[in-house]
C-alpha cells in the first residue's frame, strides 16, 4: 500500500512534466529548441484559472489553456521560424515576458500579486471502474492523467510512424533535403512548435486544476525540467515520459522524506545531474537532431 501510494504520488507529479516534455519532442524533432516551455506553461495555468473563474467550467479552462499555449508558442515560432532569430534567446525572452505578464494580469484581475481566488478543478472520470482501484484510483481517474497517457502514446506514433512525423523529423535533421522535396520547412517547424505549445498549455492547466488556483511563478522551473527530461529521453515522446516518471519519483521521494531530517537538496539536484551525465555521454549518448537549434535560411546557406 505504501508503495502504491508512492507510485500514485510519482505519477501525479510526473503529469505536467510529461505533457510538456512530450510536446517538446515535436518542436525539437522539427529543429526548434523550445526553452519557452516554462513561460508557455505559466500562460496555460493562468488561462485555465481565468476561464474557470469567469465561466465556472473547468473544460473551458482546459480549452483556454491550450489556446494560450498555442498562442505563446506562435510567438516563439514567429521569432524563430519566420524571423529566424536565435531560438534559445527567444525562449528566454518569452519566459521573462510570461513571468511579468502573468503577475501583471494577476494584479489587474484579482488585485493580488501572489495568487488567484479558488477555482474549480477538473472532475474525475470514472472510466471502466478505474476509480475503485486501491490507492491509485484517484490518480488514474484524473482526466488529464488519462489524456497525458493517451497523448504520449499518440505522440510516439505520430513522430515515428506517421508521414507527418517523418517529414517533421526531416526538418530537424536535414531541412535542405526536405525543402528540395518540395516540403515547406517553415510550415512543419511551425506546426512542431505549435503542437509543443498545446501540450505545454495542458501541463499548465493540470497545475492550476490540481491546485485550484493560480499562484505567481507556479511552474517553478518545471518547463526546464521538461526540456531536461526530453534530452534524457533522447528526443522521443516515450523516452521523455519515462524520464519524467524518474524525475517525478525523485520529487515524490523528496516529499516523503520531508521532516525526516534527511536533507532533500541532493534529491532536488538529481534530475539536473542525471541530465548533465546523459549529455556528457555517461548514460547512453544523448544526441540532438542534427539541425536542432539551427535556423533554416536558404539565403544564408
Amino acid at each position, binding site marked *: 500500500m505504501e508503495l502504491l501510494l508512492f507510485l500514485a504520488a510519482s505519477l501525479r507529479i510526473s503529469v505536467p512534466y510529461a505533457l510538456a516534455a512530450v510536446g517538446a519532442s515535436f518542436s525539437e524533432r522539427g529543429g526548434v529548441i523550445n526553452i519557452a516551455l516554462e513561460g508557455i506553461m505559466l500562460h496555460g495555468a493562468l488561462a485555465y484559472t481565468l476561464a474557470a473563474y469567469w465561466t465556472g467550467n473547468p473544460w473551458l479552462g482546459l480549452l483556454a489553456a491550450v489556446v494560450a499555449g498555442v498562442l505563446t508558442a506562435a510567438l516563439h515560432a514567429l521569432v524563430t521560424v519566420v*524571423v529566424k532569430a536565435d531560438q534559445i534567446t527567444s525562449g528566454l525572452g518569452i519566459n521573462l515576458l510570461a*513571468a511579468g505578464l502573468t503577475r501583471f494580469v494577476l494584479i489587474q484581475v484579482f488585485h493580488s500579486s501572489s495568487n488567484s481566488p479558488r477555482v474549480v478543478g477538473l472532475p474525475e472520470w470514472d472510466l471502466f471502474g478505474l476509480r475503485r482501484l486501491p490507492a491509485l484510483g484517484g490518480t488514474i481517474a484524473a482526466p488529464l492523467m488519462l489524456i497525458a497517457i493517451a497523448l504520449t502514446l499518440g505522440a510516439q506514433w505520430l513522430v515515428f510512424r506517421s508521414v507527418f512525423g517523418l517529414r517533421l523529423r526531416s526538418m530537424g535533421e536535414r531541412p535542405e533535403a526536405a525543402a528540395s522535396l518540395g516540403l515547406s520547412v517553415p510550415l512543419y517547424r511551425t506546426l512542431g512548435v505549435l503542437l509543443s505549445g498545446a501540450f505545454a498549455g495542458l501541463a499548465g492547466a493540470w497545475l492550476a486544476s490540481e491546485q485550484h488556483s493560480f499562484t505567481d511563478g507556479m511552474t517553478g522551473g518545471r518547463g526546464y525540467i521538461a526540456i*531536461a527530461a526530453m534530452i534524457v529521453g533522447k528526443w522521443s515522446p516515450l523516452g521523455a515520459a519515462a524520464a519524467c516518471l524518474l524525475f517525478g519519483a525523485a520529487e515524490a521521494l523528496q516529499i516523503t522524506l520531508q521532516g525526516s531530517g534527511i536533507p532533500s537538496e541532493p534529491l532536488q539536484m538529481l534530475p539536473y545531474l542525471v541530465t548533465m551525465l546523459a549529455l556528457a555521454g555517461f548514460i547512453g549518448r544523448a544526441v540532438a537532431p542534427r539541425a536542432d537549434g539551427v535556423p533554416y535560411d536558404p*539565403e544564408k546557406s
Partner: protein
Amino acid sequence: MSAAPGALPATPAERGAGPPARAALLRSLAPLAAVAVALAIGAIFIAAIGEDPLSIYALMLRESLGTGYGIGQTLFKATPLVFTGLAVALGFRAGLFNIGVEGQLYLGGFAAALVGLGLGGWPAPLALALTIAAAAAAGALWGAIPGVLKARFGAHEVINTIMLNFIAFALVSYLGRPHFEPATVRTAELAAGVHLARLDTLLPALRGSPANLSLAIALAAAAAVGVLLFRTRLGYELRAVGLNAPAAACGGVAVGRAQAVAMAISGAIAGLGGVNFVLGYKHFFELGFTAGAGFLGIAVALIGRNHPLGVVAAALFFGALSYGGLVINQRVPKELVEALQGIVILLAISAHEVLDRIARRMR
C-alpha cells in the same frame, strides 16, 4: 549547436556586402529600434489600464535620472547588470551561450559571504581582497564546469548551464543552512572591514542611495574585458573561435581549451557581481538575492551588442528601467517593466535579423 545569438557582430564576409558604412549603421540601429518598439508596446499596456503613458514615462525618467538619489538607485540597479551583461557578452564573443550567469552570480555572492565571515579578524584590506577574490573564484568554478564538459564531451553548454543554475540554488540552500541566522534564510552580518563603501560617502549628491564601490569594480571589469577581447592574444583566439571555430582550429587555436577558458572567465565576472549585494548593500548573503539579474544580463548583452561599452550603457538603461518601475508601482504595476524586459529581448533579436537581411540586400 553553434547558432550564433542575434547580436554577434557581422562576420567580415557579411560586412563585405553592401556599402559597409550604411550596412553597419543599419545593424547598429537594432538595439535602439527594439527599445523604442518595446516602450511603445508598454505604452499600450499603460493606456489599457487607464493611465497616461507619457506622464508615466516622464515620471520614470524624472525619478530615475532627475535626482541625485534616483541616479544613485539607477547606478545600484545597473551594477550587477554590468557584471552579468559582461559575462554573457564574453561568452557570446567566444560562440558560447552562458545561461548559467544567474547561478554563477548566486554562488559568487554566497562564497563572498562565507569567506567574509571566516576572515572576521583579518586585516581589513587583505580580508576584503580575499573576499572579492572568493566571489570570482566560485563563479569561475561554476562556469568552468560546462566549459570543460563542452570541450571534453561536446556537451551543449546551454542545457548544462541551465541545469547548473538549479543545482546552484539547491546546493546553496544545503550548504548555507548551518550558516543562516535562526529562523531566517540569511547569514550573519559581515565585519565592517569587508564592506564596500557607499558612493554617497564620496559623492554627497547620491545621498541615501545604495550605490557602492562595486560599481567601480564593474567598470574596471568592463575595461578589462575590452582589453582582453581586443588587445590580447587570448581575446583574439576567443573571438576567432566564436566567429568560426573550424577556421580557428586550422589557425592553430586549441578550440576546446579556449571555450573552457572563456566559460571560466565569464563565470568569474558573473561571480564578482555578487559583491554588489553582499559586500556593498546588505552586508550579508540571503537566499534568492540574485532575483533574475543573471537572466537580465542576456538582455543587457544583446542590447549592448556584446561590446563592453555597449554593455555598460545597456546596464544603465535597464537599471533606470528597473528603478523607474518601482517608482511608478503605485499607478502601474512594476510587473509591466518585467514583461517589457522580455519583450525587449524578443525585439532585439528580431530587429537584428530583419535589419541584417536588409543590409545584405543593399549590395
